[in-house]
């Protein structure tokens, strides 16, 4: 693909709101995960909760989009100068010519859970009047909210491919720009805490009772987090400017909720993102690294198969938890911070590296020039996506 400039970006996770708090937390090795129950959850586990969503108000006519997921979007859009950057792009390209591509796995399902709870408590058959499907639960809600919030009037799409959703937005945006359907794009991802994912992953025995420990010999599963992030993509980056340089996608065609164990098809996605760039040119790989036994083993087979043990890599889920449909954009932001600050985070919470893991997992943070970063995101349904970030040529 042709390189796309990333002219603005922002991120919110359990670590904090905005880019500055993320690089600070990465350097200080300060996790955002806490051992607490989400609302009335009965599950004992660690979660990555974003503080302050209770007090976020959606502006004006957008109040009908009110739900935890869209509040997280609103909070995130309003920071790091993102609204101003999109405003400038809107003036430059026109509101119709900036596409919106937002990843989510569960959208406003927390809102639906609350509606069902009220229905059960009240012993009624129907859902309460306050429940608006289109603006909250519908997968598209987050993309429509973002489009309207940013004053854009053209192409908008919610990409929902489980935990690869907000990595795949980079691919969809790049193709739409290349096809001429838009001149620039807002990409992003938002997923928020809910009982569906906590109890769902728990039903699959994938939630750790301890804090998640990616690549650890004694890893027991993931910690679920919530997050939002956005980036503004434009054509023809200036030489040296931060850019998205490639995206690779593939399908495992193996199992609905288990990765292909040999990692051979995930490797195809990584190679697709690299394009002509030799693997040894990659400075750092941000792993999907969910800390489930199956993911970390399959991903290691994929990474070590392509890179051997030459390229430093780590999962940053130890800070944010697995933010599911937002993981791709959160880790895109971390990749861009790594490049800007010359900093490679270690695999947080990893005490004893799994001896079966062959890739060069960072057990200590490293400060060095970071030229190219590859970010991996994989999801249920066997969907794989890798995105390459670096300075534009």
């Amino acid at each position: 693909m042709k390189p796309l400039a990333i002219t603005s970006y922002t991120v919110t996770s359990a670590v904090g709101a905005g880019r500055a708090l993320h690089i600070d937390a990465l350097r200080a090795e300060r996790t955002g995960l806490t051992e607490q129950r989400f609302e009335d959850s009965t599950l004992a586990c660690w979660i990555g909760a974003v503080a302050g969503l209770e007090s976020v108000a959606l502006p004006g006519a957008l109040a009908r989009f009110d739900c935890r997921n869209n509040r997280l979007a609103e909070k995130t859009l309003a920071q790091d100068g993102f609204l101003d950057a999109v405003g400038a792009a809107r003036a430059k390209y026109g509101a119709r010519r900036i596409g919106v591509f937002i990843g989510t796995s569960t959208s406003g399902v927390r809102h639906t859970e609350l509606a069902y709870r009220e229905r059960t408590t009240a012993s009624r058959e129907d859902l309460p009047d306050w429940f608006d499907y289109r603006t909250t639960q519908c997968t598209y809600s987050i993309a429509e909210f973002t489009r309207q919030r940013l004053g854009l009037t053209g192409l908008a799409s919610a990409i929902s491919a489980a935990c690869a959703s907000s990595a795949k937005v980079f691919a969809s945006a790049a193709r739409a720009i290349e096809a001429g359907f838009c001149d620039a794009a807002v990409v992003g991802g938002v997923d928020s805490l809910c009982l569906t994912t906590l109890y769902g992953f728990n039903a699959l025995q994938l939630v750790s009772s301890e804090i998640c420990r990616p690549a650890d010999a004694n890893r027991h599963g993931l910690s679920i987090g919530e997050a939002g992030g956005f980036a503004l993509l434009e054509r023809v980056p200036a030489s040296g400017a931060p850019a998205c340089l490639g995206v690779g996608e593939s399908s495992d065609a193996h199992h609905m909720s288990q990765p292909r164990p040999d990692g051979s098809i995930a490797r195809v996605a990584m190679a697709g993102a690299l394009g002509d760039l030799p693997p040894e040119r990659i400075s750092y790989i941000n792993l999907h690294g969910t800390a489930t036994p199956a993911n970390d083993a399959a991903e290691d087979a994929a990474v070590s198969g392509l890179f051997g043990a030459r390229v430093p890599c780590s999962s940053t889920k130890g800070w944010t938890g697995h933010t599911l449909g937002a993981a791709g954009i959160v880790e895109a932001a971390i990749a861009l911070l790594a490049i800007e600050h010359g900093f490679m985070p270690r695999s947080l919470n990893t005490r004893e590296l799994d001896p079966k893991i062959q890739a060069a997992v960072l057990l200590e943070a490293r400060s060095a020039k970071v030229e190219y970063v590859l970010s991996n995101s994989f999801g249920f349904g066997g969907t794989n996506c890798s995105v390459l970030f670096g300075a534009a040529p």
Partner: protein
Amino acid sequence: MSVCFIKGVGIAAPGLAGWNASLDILRGAAPYVAIAETPYAPALLPPNERRRATASVRQAFRAAEDAVNGSGGDAGTLASVFASSDADMAVLHRICAALAQTPRVISPTDFHNSVHNAASGYWSIAVQSVALTTTLSAFDASFTIGLLEAVALVDAQRDVLLVAYDAVAPQPLLAKRPLALSAGVAVVLGTQAGTAALGRIAIDIGDASETTCVNPELEALRESNPALRVLPLFELLAAKRAGAISLRGTGDSCVALTYTP
């Protein structure tokens, strides 16, 4: 503007049971009769996955298998786009109802079927395709936005299968998302005509007002399911009649389509 060839078409809706069976209805040579769909077991799915596949996955497969059979191509080589406003509302209902009970017990199969990309995951397993697949929602514009994604994805190296589908929700969700019927449609797109192509389409963002169906019976169906927003295009395809139409997009945009047989 992008141009590509239509190499296969599929449809599965009440009274529109497959592309070939629907041709006369779509070109106005036979009346539309709203016959309920018969149960469908996806031919391509292995037994384990067939057992677990939900109603919306079956709806998607019914249209996808029809289009791929018609195209004469190898399903295993196609990239794919799955467009659905709502994915699986029956699964959503079961999960949210279970979470409102004590104790909260949700089925692991329901959970993995709850992802919006369930149909695309089952499809890649069924046809053993490792090609990229993407899954999106744009509410009532899901077919249209899916078509833009599919057209942008087509290149000389790969043909693309687009599947748009939505299944009717159970109550109480149906009252909040009142689709009149379940439906799926599919098209196979490529840059080369091949032997079976039905013609080519040129597509771009526009702002003409939305085109309605020629046939009033089909017009009544068009707004009954997001997938059936395609019907004005299918009328042209079935009649092999050149024409320009406009499909409602997102925001204030429309998608302008020009069909040449």
